[in-house]
C-alpha cells in the first residue's frame, strides 16, 4: 500500500518520457492487429478498383471507403474503454470541427489535420482514427455532406491512425520530425482525395489521369502541407502540454 502511494505521490515529477511509457501499452498482438487492418484497408481499395472494371467506380469507391472505416468503429464499440477517454475523443473532435469552421472562408488552409495528428500522437492510433473520421462527418454537416464524406473520413482517420503508431509517436513529439510528418500527411490527404476526383469526374482510373489530377491539385496540396506545418507548430505546445497533464493527473488513455 505504502509503495503504491509513493509511486503516485508525485505525479508532477513525471516528464513526458515516462508518460509516454505509460500511454503506450501496446503489445505485439495489438500492433499486428493494427498493421493487418491498415494493410487490409489498402488492399480492399486496390481490389475494388481492380475488380470493378465496369463504370460504377465512384459508387463502389465510396462504399469501399465507408467499409474501410467500419472495422475501426466496431473494434471500438466492442472493447471496454474508459469513459474519460471517450469524452476526450468528443472534445478533440469538437475542437477540430471548430478549427475548420473558424478557418472556413480560407480554402484548404485548415487546422483540423494538425489537431488530428496531435490527437494520434498523444492519445494513440485508435483515438486518432476516431477523431479524424468523426471530424469529417460532423464538419460536413456544416459544410455539406456528399459522396466525398467517406473519403474524408478514411483519409483523416488514417492521418490520426498513422500519427499514433507506436514507434512513431515518440519521434513525433519533437518539432522537426513533426514538421516533416505534417508535410507528408498533407501529401497523403491530397493523394487519397484525388482518387475520388478522378473516379467521379473522369471515366475510369489510370495512373496517368491520377497524376494529372494530382498536378492540377498541386496548389491545394501545397496549402495543405503548409497549413499542417504552421498549425502543428502553433498547437503542439498547447495541445501537447494539456493532454500530457490530463494523462498524468487522471491516468487516461
Amino acid at each position, binding site marked *: 500500500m505504502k509503495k503504491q502511494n509513493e509511486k503516485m505521490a508525485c*505525479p*508532477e515529477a513525471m516528464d513526458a518520457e515516462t508518460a509516454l511509457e505509460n500511454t503506450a501499452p501496446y503489445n505485439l498482438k495489438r500492433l499486428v492487429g493494427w498493421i493487418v487492418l491498415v494493410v487490409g484497408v489498402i488492399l480492399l481499395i486496390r481490389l475494388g478498383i481492380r475488380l470493378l472494371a465496369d463504370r460504377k467506380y465512384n459508387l463502389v469507391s465510396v462504399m469501399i471507403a465507408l467499409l474501410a472505416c467500419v472495422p475501426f468503429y466496431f473494434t471500438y464499440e466492442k472493447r471496454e474503454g474508459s469513459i474519460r477517454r471517450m469524452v476526450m475523443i468528443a472534445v478533440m473532435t469538437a475542437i477540430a470541427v471548430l478549427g475548420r469552421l473558424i478557418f472556413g472562408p480560407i480554402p484548404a488552409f485548415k487546422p483540423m489535420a494538425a489537431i488530428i495528428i496531435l490527437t494520434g500522437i498523444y492519445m494513440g492510433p485508435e483515438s486518432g482514427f476516431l477523431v479524424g473520421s468523426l471530424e469529417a462527418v460532423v464538419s460536413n454537416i456544416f459544410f455539406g455532406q456528399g459522396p466525398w464524406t467517406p473519403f474524408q473520413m478514411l483519409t483523416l482517420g488514417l492521418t490520426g491512425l498513422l500519427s499514433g503508431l507506436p514507434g512513431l509517436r515518440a519521434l513525433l513529439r519533437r518539432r522537426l520530425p513533426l514538421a516533416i510528418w505534417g508535410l507528408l500527411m498533407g501529401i497523403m490527404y491530397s493523394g487519397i482525395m484525388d482518387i475520388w476526383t478522378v473516379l467521379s469526374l473522369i471515366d475510369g482510373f489510370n495512373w496517368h489521369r491520377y497524376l494529372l489530377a494530382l498536378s492540377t491539385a498541386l496548389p491545394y496540396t501545397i496549402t495543405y502541407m503548409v497549413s499542417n506545418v504552421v498549425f502543428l507548430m502553433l498547437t503542439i505546445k498547447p495541445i501537447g502540454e494539456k493532454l500530457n*497533464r490530463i494523462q498524468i493527473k487522471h491516468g487516461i488513455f
Partner: protein
Amino acid sequence: MELLKVEDLTFTYPRQKKDIDEAAPALEHVSFEIQEGEFIVVCGESGCGKTTLLKLLKRELAPFGEKSGKIWFRGVEQNSLTDREAACEIGYVLQNPENQTVTDKVWHELAFGLENMGVPTPVIRRRVAEMACFFGIDDWFRKKTTELSGGQKQLLNLASIMAMQPKLLILDEPTSQLDPIAASDFINTLVKINKDLGLTILMTEHRLEEVFPVADRVFVMDKGKILLMEPPREAGRDLKQINANHKMLLGLPSALRIYHGLDAPEAECPLTVRDGRNFLEENYENRICRLERKKTESEGTKKDRPIAMRMKDICFRYEKDLPDVLESVALTVYEGEIISLLGGNGAGKTTLLNVVSGANKPYRGKLEIFGKRIQKYSGKELYAGKLASLPQNPQTVFIKMTVREDYQEIQKVMGYSQEEMEQKISEIADLLGISHLLSRHPYDLSGGEQQKAALGKVLLLQPRLLLLDEPTKGIDAWSKHQLQLLLKDLKRQGIAILMVTHDVEFAAGVSDRCGLFFDHEITSLDTPEEFFCNNNYYTTAANRISRQRYENAVTCEEVIELCRQNRKIKSGDRSQQRNGQGEAHEETE
C-alpha cells in the same frame, strides 16, 4: 433501519510533491447515520472536507487516496453493492451545471440515466414524460441543452437523476453557480421532492439563507471533522458556543447572525426572516428608528474627486437586427468609490461591463475613461495601469501551467523588470492569501481559489478602475468577508470599482452607491441605505427583518447596532444570567 451509515471514516489524499509538510487527513473519524426521508445540509468553509465526504459516499466518484472506516448503504457495505445499485440508487448532482450535462438535447439528457440502466423504451418514455411534467420542463423538452440558462441546466441535471428514482440524493453546492432567483427556485424544488416524495437529501451549501431553516439536521464540518449534527435551530445556537469566532458564523442566515450579534441565548433562536422579525419585536424596543450614519468621506467630497469613467447615452446591440441591450445608458464613476449594479439575469449588466472594458463597442454614445475617450486609447494603453476587468468565469483568465507563470505574463504588459515582477507577485499573493497556490495548476484550485487567483492576475495590472463581474460567485462567507475588506482597502487607495453582482448582501456591505439595471438602463442609482430601504423585495434579509421596526438598517451589523442603541425589553432578571453564560462559553474555548 437507517439509509446510510458512516462509521469512523478517515481519508487522506495522496501527498503532493510540492506540499512540504505531511498531508493532513481530509476527513478524520467521521461517523454518522442518516434516516430515510431526512433533509440534511452539510456546511463548513471551503476546504473543510465537505466535497470529499460527499464523493466518498458515491462509489463511482470516490477520490483516490488512503481510506479507512466503513460506509453502509441500506445495510450493505459500500464495496459489496452491485454496480447497478451503486450507480442508480445514489444520485449525485455536481457543482457546475454545465459539466455534468452529457448529451445535446434535453429529452435525451433526461433519458440518459435510464438508458444506462437498460430500461426499455416504453418505460423510459413514461418516466421521462413524468419527470418533465413534475419539474416543469415540458416547455423546453425538445431544446438543445446549450440553449438553457444556468438554472434550467441545473434543474435538468436534477430531473435526469430523479428519473432514475434514486433512494438517496447527494448535491454538492448545486446553487453556487446560479443567480439568487434560480437558486431559490432550485432549493424550493428540493424541498418539494423531500416533502412530497420522501426522498432523502444530503447537500452542501454556502448560501444558507434559505436552505438552513428547511433542513432536518445540519452538519457543520471543520477541518475534516464533523463539529455539529443537530437540527438547524440548535446547530445555529450551539455553533457560537463552541467557538465565538468560528468562520462559519458569517455564513449563517441573517436572522441567526443578528441573534448571535446581540448575545441573547435565552430567546428562541430565529432562523427565517419571520422568526427574525418576531425576535426583534419581542426583545428590543424601537425608540430610535434611524441609525445616524457618519457621512462617509466619499459621500461628502464626491464632486471634488476626479472622474474615473463617464458614459453618456451609450447604446449597444450585438447584431444589427437584434434589439438594444443597452439603451442610452449614462453613468459616472468617481475615483475611490465602489458602485454595484444589481439586476435580473440577462438584463445586460455584463454587457455594460464589457462596453466599459472595451470588449464591446457601442454604436452610439460617449465613453470617457480618465478623461480620455475610449477610442483614443490604442493597444494595451488602456489596460496597463488604468483599467482591469475580472470576468465572470475565472477560468478564462488562465492559460499557463501554474498560477505563477500566469502572473508573470503581466510583466510584458506593465514593463516590469524581473525583480519588480517577483516582488509584485508576492505582494499580491500575500494580500489575497494565496501564496501557497502560486505553484499549483490553475485548474487544480477550487472554484473560490480560482476566483481569488484570477483577481490577483487582474490586480497585477495596477488598475485605477476595476471592473468586477460577479466576484462572489461560488465563494464561501469567510472569503466574501475577506473580499469585502480587500475592496474597501483598494477603494482607500483611490481605485474606482464598478461591480456587477447578484449578491444583495455583499453589495449592501461594500458599496458607496447601488443601482438596479432594468429595461436596458440603470435606474435608481443611490446610496445602499436609500436603495435598499426603498426596495421591498430586492433587498437584504437584514433589511426585511428589521424594516417594520427600524427605518434604515441594511446590513446585519447595522441592525445589531440599532438594537444595541435601543434597549432590550426587560423581562425579569434573565439578562443578568445571560451575560454570565456568554463569558463562560468564551472561556471554555
